[in-house]
């Protein structure tokens, strides 16, 4: 029974990690596109965009959640509380989704 739970949690964590790998790859590609052809001045469009404040706010909140995730994982790993590990995985996912949103709004503004 316990082995099944371990396997399920491991499978769950691995699948989240795989999703996150793809997300970080997409984010990296967006940033690479951004400075591939020296789009320095195109960044102004992003500054004038109404979403700029919201985007940076999201990044701030996401980093707070990420920090909580690391802190939770650190303790729960040693104490063996499974739910804490799952919680921290959700925190990481939130962080990556928020960063993806930020990168996408930046990418969209520059592309336009």
């Amino acid at each position, binding site marked *: 029974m316990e082995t099944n739970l371990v396997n399920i949690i491991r499978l769950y964590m691995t699948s989240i990690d795989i999703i996150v790998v793809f997300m970080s790859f997409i984010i990296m590609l967006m940033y690479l596109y*951004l400075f591939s052809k020296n789009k320095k001045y195109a960044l102004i469009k992003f500054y004038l965009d109404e979403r700029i404040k919201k985007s940076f*706010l999201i990044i701030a909140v996401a980093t707070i959640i990420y920090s909580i995730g690391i802190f939770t994982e650190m303790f729960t790993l040693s104490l063996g509380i499974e739910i804490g590990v799952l919680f921290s995985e959700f925190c990481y996912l939130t962080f990556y989704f928020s960063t993806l949103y930020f990168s996408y709004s930046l990418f969209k503004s520059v592309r336009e």
Partner: protein
Amino acid sequence: MDFSNNFAMFPLDPTFTIIAYYLIPALLSIIGFYVSYKLYTNISSKPREMFIVAFSLTEDKTFTEMKIIAILFGMLFTSLSFTVIGMLTNNSSILSITMIMNMFFGIGMIYIITRWNKRISKVGKEWKQI
């Protein structure tokens, strides 16, 4: 389910394990929490126009930051790929490398957020004076 066994598979010195898996992540998460909370309060308390001025007057710096973020996410991508490979193959040395890479990602993000904080605070002060 004993997750503490996860640490046992890393062939490291116990003192190093405590520093690498407890002290450094704890310190980084506290600093990360502090700087990102400061960024949140900084942004939410200031008008959008000031925010535009803060970033559009420092294009070169922002462009450099974007480059750093790209490098950080490139490193994170490599690190996460290694994590998946390490978890699937149960290879402890690969997992150890990912810990170090994640640590660098954390330091990099803290550095970027601190730079944003400084810039917003500086422009905020000038904005108030005007």
